[in-house]
């Protein structure tokens, strides 16, 4: 799989970005970190909008920047779609002309994405003849995304495209971003400081702090690793799983999900059987038992697990990293840890009280 490699070292009057990025170019990679950690600057360096004096950047086999050879492709020569925090639509054009601005500027043989596709995915068919100032913030941002997509980019850079929107518009736009990744297969770099967006969208995370990459890896592994739990407001995450919808039990108001041969019940969902959904489990909703209950239990979600690592958080509580095919964290009391005599390598059963589906996160 092709990768994106970049090394930038840029000094600003009050800030120093010093990063080394190496990520596979598939799915959605989140650049995540607190405000002022250099996320936008990193994205601008990737686009060529900021020029790092000793920068190196390679996208697959294509070298976009190599300062040793004095090479730095300007943005307009890079096959990149860029969506800014603000929509930055052109006020003197209507929606259609905005959408077509980039489309007209690429050779016709390079056009892989059609206007119909973009209009369909983003749901902007009814806006085409409108003037820009007649659009809501969410609509403007959708047009901005569509405009970027119509250049058929090989890489999509999104700089907090939801930041300026209210929660309702955010919720409205998130599925579109997920869809464009699923349907168009364009790798996305997504800058955000909102953990909820990352948890819903990202496959992979690059964690930035004070201009440095402090970790980078698959979303689930990073946020369940005991080292990084507790950072960035992600401290309550137990697991993020991709599960397949196996069946609906309408008479009980339940939907059955499957992953890695294990099953989970969630409240009845309006999703079709076979579809893959992303579910979240809070670590405080996971409790551990040593043996599979012989007496019947009211708990529906019981998963077989192996203890991987135990970390004491404070005097009262510990985090237990489990392997259920994917990582799962249980937050339990220290008293329980001692009473049960839990140790790494041990087989246990995880009882899960609540499983949340993606869409419920933002609310």
């Amino acid at each position, binding site marked *: 799989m092709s990768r994106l490699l970049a090394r930038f070292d840029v000094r600003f009057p009050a800030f120093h970005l010093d990063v080394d990025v190496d990520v596979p170019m598939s799915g959605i990679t989140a650049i995540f970190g607190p405000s002022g950690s250099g996320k936008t600057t990193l994205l601008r360096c990737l686009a060529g909008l900021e020029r790092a004096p000793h920068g190196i950047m390679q996208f697959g086999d294509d070298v976009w920047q190599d300062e040793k050879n004095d090479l730095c492709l300007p943005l307009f020569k890079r096959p990149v779609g860029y969506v800014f925090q603000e929509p930055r*639509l052109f006020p003197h054009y209507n929606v259609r002309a905005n959408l077509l601005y*980039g489309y007209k500027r690429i050779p016709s043989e390079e056009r892989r994405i059609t206007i119909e596709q973009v209009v369909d995915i983003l749901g902007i068919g009814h806006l085409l003849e409108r003037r820009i100032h007649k659009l809501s913030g969410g609509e403007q941002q959708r047009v901005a995304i569509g405009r970027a997509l119509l250049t058929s980019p090989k890489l999509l850079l999104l700089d907090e495209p939801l930041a300026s929107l209210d929660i309702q518009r955010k919720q409205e736009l998130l599925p579109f971003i997920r869809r464009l990744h699923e349907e168009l297969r364009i790798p996305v770099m997504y800058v955000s400081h909102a953990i909820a967006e990352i948890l819903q969208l990202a496959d992979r995370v690059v964690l930035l702090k004070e201009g440095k990459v402090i970790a980078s890896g698959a979303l689930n592994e990073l946020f369940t690793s005991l080292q990084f739990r507790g950072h960035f407001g992600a401290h309550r995450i137990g697991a993020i799983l991709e599960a397949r919808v196996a069946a609906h039990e309408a008479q009980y108001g339940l939907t059955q999900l499957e992953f890695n041969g294990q099953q989970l019940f969630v409240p009845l969902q309006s999703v079709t059987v076979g579809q893959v959904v992303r579910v979240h489990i809070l670590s405080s909703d996971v409790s551990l038992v040593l043996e599979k209950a012989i007496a019947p239990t009211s708990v529906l979600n019981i998963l077989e697990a192996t203890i991987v690592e135990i970390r004491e958080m404070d005097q009262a509580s510990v985090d237990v990293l489990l392997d259920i095919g994917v990582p799962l964290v249980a937050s339990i009391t220290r008293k329980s840890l001692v009473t049960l005599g839990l140790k790494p390598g041990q087989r246990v059963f995880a009882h899960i009280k609540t499983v949340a589906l993606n869409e419920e996160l933002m609310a």
Partner: protein
Amino acid sequence: MGVLTDLDLSALWVSVRLATMTVIVLLIVGTPLAWWLAHTRSRLRPIIESTVALPIVLPPTVLGFYILVALGPYGPLGRLADLSLAFTFTGLVIASVFYSMPFVIQPLQSAFEAAGKAPLEAAWSLRASKWDAFLTVISPIALRGYISAIVLGFAHTMGEFGVVLMVGGSIPGQTRVLSTTIFEHVEAMEYAQAHAISAFMLVFSFLVLLAVYITNRRFPIHVS
């Protein structure tokens, strides 16, 4: 217009030609300069800005005097052209370019500042080269600035007097413009003709400004 003589009409023609030429030259020279002023972080910026603004406060005679010296056969510009440009139409254009410069540069500069770099970056991200982005995005967004620059530059050149008299003299058909013609008529006690030309300039200026304001209102440029 029965009061206007052929001489008056030729002065009108010289005025219009002069103003048009001046505005064209200033748009070509002024666009990159205004762009630079709008976006540079150079320490030279205030110095250049003050220089551009000088004609607003300087007596036209001071400006006219130095331009006359520069254009003359021994001045740097005169030597460059290998002849005296003083008292010629070309000399008049050069003088007017300096004299009307702030009226073109300043509206352009503020239009570029208001547009900012954001739309430019957006255009680059949509595969537009620098020139393309400037022509298709920045100039339409800065259109009001261009309209103001053209109108103010044109009207100000039409109305200049001191510099024209110093640099151009008032040679009929060559350097005699409307404003100097009015002066000549008054000197010759031809009040009716002076009045006719003055009234014409008054109405003309008013109509030009009116047209601009109506156009701006009718076709607003929305900068969100």
